[in-house]
C-alpha cells in the first residue's frame, strides 16, 4: 500500500509541476533562511570544553571602585589583577589553575632575508595545556618548575611550526623573539577553539594564539597586555612595578577542580582570601566572587551577538510565511481534486486511507524541500560569508556539520507535515456523494 501511495503522490506532484516546484522552492528557501542562521548560531555558541564543563571555572573577584560597580547592576570585573592572580596561583588550592594574558612580540625568523613579524603570544602557566586538553603533535608543555625558574621556553602552534620550521619536529630547537632566544619544548597539533573560551575579550573567534610562553618569564621581561586593561584608581607611582602592584585588571584566571562538588570549597577559599585582603585595606566592595563554568561564562560575556538573535527571529517568521504559502497551495490543490476524492470515497476508500495518502504526498514534498533546503542553507552561508568577508575569521563560523544537515531535513519534513495537516483534513472530510452529484 505504501508503495502505491508513493506512486500516487509522485503522479500528483508531476501533474502540477509548476505548483509543486513552487511548494518545494518555498519550503527550501524557508529552511535555507532558518538553517543558515541556526548554523551560525550553533558554531558561535559552541563549547570547546563541553566534556569538562562542570570541572572548569573562570575566576572573578570584585576589587573594584567602592562607589561604582564594574558593570551594572553589580558585576565583578571580568579579569583579575596581577596581585590576585599570582597569589591564587601560588596558593594552588585547585586541582589545576592557570593565569594568563596575551602580548605582542616580534618573531625574528632565522636567515638573512627572513622578515621579522609581530605575533600575539600567550603568557601562561604550566597547567594551561592539561586543563584545556590542548593537543600536542611533538613534545609537551613546560612544567611548574619551568614557571618558577622563568625558563626561556615556548610552545608553538602547528601553523607557527610550519611557518618557522617547515612543520618538522622542532622540539629542542631555538627561536628568537624581540632579540631574545627561546627553546621550543612542544608543538601543538591543529587547535582552534571556537569560540576562544579562555579569553573572550576583543574577538572570541580570532583563534588561539600561535605561541605560548611562561607567565613568570613575561613578567620578568615586563611585557604589557595586548588585550583589555582597566583601572579604577590611579597607579601608586610609575613604571611596571607600580602597574603590577595596582588594582588594574588584565589577567584571565581559570581553575580546574577535581570534582564538581569541590566548587563550594573553592568558593569558600576565594571568599576567605578576599576577607584577608580586606584586612590589608584592599577590596573596598562587598565580597562578590564568581566562579563560572565555560558555558556560563560565554553566556555572561554574550558571545552570541544580538544581531544573530534578531536575524534568527526574522528567519523563523520567514519560514512561517513559506509554510503559510505551502498550506495555501496544498489546500488549493485539494479543493481542485474534490471530485477525485469523492469518487475514491464512493468506491470505498476509508478516511484514514485518504489521510495517509495525502500525508505521504506532503511528506514527499517535505523531503524534496528539505534536500533543496540543504543546498539553500549552503548558499545562505556563502552569502553571509560574502557580506562579512572583511572579517578574516568568518569562514570558521560558516561551517555546516552533519547534525545541521540532519536538522535541516527534519525541520523541512516536520514543518511540511504540519502544513499538510489542515489541507489533508479538508480532503478527508469531502463526503463521498456531494461532488459526484453535479457530474
Amino acid at each position, binding site marked *: 500500500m505504501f508503495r502505491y501511495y508513493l506512486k500516487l503522490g509522485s503522479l500528483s506532484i508531476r501533474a502540477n509541476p509548476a505548483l509543486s516546484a513552487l511548494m518545494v522552492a518555498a519550503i527550501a528557501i524557508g529552511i535555507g533562511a532558518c538553517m543558515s542562521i541556526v548554523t551560525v548560531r550553533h558554531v558561535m555558541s559552541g563549547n570547546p570544553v563541553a566534556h569538562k564543563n562542570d570541572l572548569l571555572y573562570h575566576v572573578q573577584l570584585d576589587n573594584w571602585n567602592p562607589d561604582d560597580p564594574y558593570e551594572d547592576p553589580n558585576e565583578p570585573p571580568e579579569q583579575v589583577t596581577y596581585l590576585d592572580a599570582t597569589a591564587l596561583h601560588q596558593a594552588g588550592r585547585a586541582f589545576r589553575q592557570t593565569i594568563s594574558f596575551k602580548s*605582542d612580540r616580534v618573531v625574528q625568523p632565522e636567515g638573512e632575508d627572513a*622578515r621579522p613579524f609581530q605575533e600575539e603570544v600567550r603568557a601562561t602557566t604550566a597547567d594551561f595545556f592539561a586543563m584545556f586538553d590542548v593537543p600536542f603533535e611533538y613534545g609537551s608543555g613546560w612544567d611548574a618548575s619551568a614557571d618558577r625558574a622563568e625558563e626561556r621556553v615556548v610552545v608553538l602552534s602547528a601553523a607557527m611550526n610550519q611557518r618557522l620550521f617547515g612543520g618538522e619536529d622542532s622540539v629542542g630547537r631555538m627561536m628568537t623573539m624581540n632579540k631574545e632566544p627561546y627553546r621550543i619544548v612542544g608543538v601543538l597539533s591543529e587547535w582552534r577553539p571556537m569560540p576562544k573560551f579562555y579569553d573572550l575579550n576583543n574577538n572570541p573567534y580570532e583563534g588561539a594564539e600561535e605561541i605560548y610562553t611562561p607567565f613568570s618569564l613575561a613578567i620578568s621581561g615586563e611585557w604589557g597586555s595586548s588585550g583589555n586593561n582597566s583601572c579604577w*584608581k590611579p597607579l601608586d607611582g610609575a613604571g611596571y612595578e607600580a602597574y603590577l602592584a595596582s588594582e588594574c585588571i588584565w589577567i584571565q584566571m581559570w581553575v580546574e577542580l577535581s570534582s564538581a562538588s569541590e566548587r563550594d570549597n573553592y568558593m569558600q577559599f576565594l571568599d576567605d582570601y578576599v576577607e584577608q585582603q580586606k584586612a590589608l585595606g584592599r577590596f573596598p566592595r562587598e565580597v562578590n566572587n564568581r566562579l563560572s563554568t565555560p558555558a556560563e561564562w560565554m553566556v555572561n560575556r554574550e558571545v552570541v551577538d544580538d544581531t544573530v538573535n534578531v536575524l534568527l527571529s526574522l528567519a523563523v517568521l520567514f519560514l512561517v510565511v513559506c509554510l503559510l504559502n505551502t498550506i*495555501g497551495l496544498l489546500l488549493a490543490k485539494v*479543493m481542485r481534486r474534490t471530485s477525485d476524492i469523492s469518487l475514491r470515497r464512493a468506491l470505498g476508500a476509508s478516511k484514514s486511507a485518504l489521510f495517509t495518502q495525502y500525508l505521504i504526498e506532503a511528506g514527499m514534498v517535505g523531503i524534496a524541500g528539505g534536500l533543496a533546503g540543504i543546498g539553500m542553507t549552503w548558499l545562505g552561508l556563502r552569502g553571509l560569508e560574502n*557580506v562579512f568577508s572583511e572579517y578574516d575569521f568568518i569562514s570558521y563560523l560558516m561551517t555546516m556539520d552533519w547534525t545541521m544537515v540532519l536538522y535541516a531535513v527534519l525541520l523541512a519534513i516536520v514543518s511540511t507535515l504540519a502544513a499538510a495537516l489542515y489541507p489533508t483534513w479538508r480532503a478527508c472530510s469531502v463526503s463521498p456523494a456531494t461532488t459526484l452529484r453535479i457530474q
Partner: protein
Amino acid sequence: MDIGPVWRAMLKNKAGFVLIALQIAVTMTIMVNAFAIMQERANNVGRESGLDEANTFALASAWFDEFDRDLMKIRIDEDLALIRGVPGVRSAVASNSFPLRQGGWSMSLQTEPGSQSPDSIGSAIYFVDEYGLDTFAATLIDGANFTPNQVSWQVQNDDTWPATGIITEALAKEIFPDEEGSVVGKTIYINDNDPVNIIGVIERMQAPWPGWTGVERTMLVPQRRYSDFQRYIIRTEPGYRDALMPEIEALLANSSKDRLIRDVTTMEQVRKLAYVGDTAMIRILTFVVMLLTVITGLGIVGLASFNVSRRTRQIGIRRALGATKPAIVRYFMTENLIVSAIGLTIGGILSVALNMVMVEAFSLEPLAWYVIPIAMIALLMVGQAAVAGPARRASNISPAIATRSS
C-alpha cells in the same frame, strides 16, 4: 465594483483567503521590522568620522630592541620629521588611535575634582601634538590650537596628565549642559583630580568606537608617549595618498633594522571594517525582504490561478449574462484588495508587537511610524500586481463555456 457579492463569495471559501491574509500579515511584520533595523544601521554608517577619509592613512611602528626612553624620543621625533618632510604630505601626527579604529583610550571627565563625582562623563582621548587638528581635519570653532611648547612627553604606566585639552562640541554640551557661552577657559578634571584647562572646541571628531553611544565625545591632549609602539596618522594633499602609502612605509622600514611597520591602512579600509556588521545587516535584510515579497507574490498568483480555474464555469456564466471583461478583472482585483486589507491590518498590529518585543529584547530603536503605511502601500501594490495576470486570464474565458456541461 460592489464589495458585497465579492465578500459573500469569499466567505464560502474562507480557508484559502485566511491563509493569504495571514501570509501578507507576517510578510508585512518582517518587512516593517527589517526596515526599522536597516534604517538604524544606515544612520550609523552615514555618520561622519570627522576625518578627511579620502586623503588619510595610518601605519604603526613596533621597535623590538631594548627599550630606551631617550632613544625612543629621538626616534619618534625623527620619524615625524621624516614623514612631514615628504612632498605631498599635508600633516602627520603620532597618536594612540583614530576614529573608527575600534580600539583606543577612554577616561572619565568631570567638572569637580574628587573620586566620587556624580557628573562624570566618559570621553575618548587622543594624544596629539600641534599638528593633530590638521591631520584629523578638525575644524576649530572656538579657542585655539595647541602650541608646540604645550606638548609634553609622558612615560607609559605613568599618570600625569597634560594641563590643556581641546574637546568636541558634543562633549562640551554634555559636560556643560547649561553653558550658553564659550567653554574655553573652563577647567575639567580627569583621573579624578587632575585639572585640564579647555583651550579649544572643535566641531566634530569621533571616538574610535563607532558602536559606542558616546561616539561624538572626544578630547585631544597635547602629549607624546615613550612607547616602543607608535601609530602615525598621515594626511596627504588630495590625490597623493595611494602613491605615498608604500613610499612612506618603505622609508620608515628602511630607516631602522630594529622595527617593523604594520597596520598600514587607509581610512576607507578602516571605515569598511568598522561598519562591516551594519552594512552586512543592511544587505542581508534587503535580500530577505525582496525574497519574501517574491514568495508572497507567487503565493498570491498561485492561489488566484486556482480560483480562476476552479470558477471557470461561473465566470463563463457571468460573461454570458453580460458581464464585461473589465468587470471580471475588477472582481478578482477587489477580492485581492479585501484580502490584502485584512492581512495588512493584522500585519500592522503584528509589526508593532514584534517591534516592541525586539526593542525590549535586543535594545533596538523603536520603528518610525511612517514605515507602516509605506509597507502597507508596497504590499498592496505587490498583491494587485500578482493578481493582475490570473485576473486577465479569467476575463478571457469565453462566455460559451457556460453552455458546455463539464
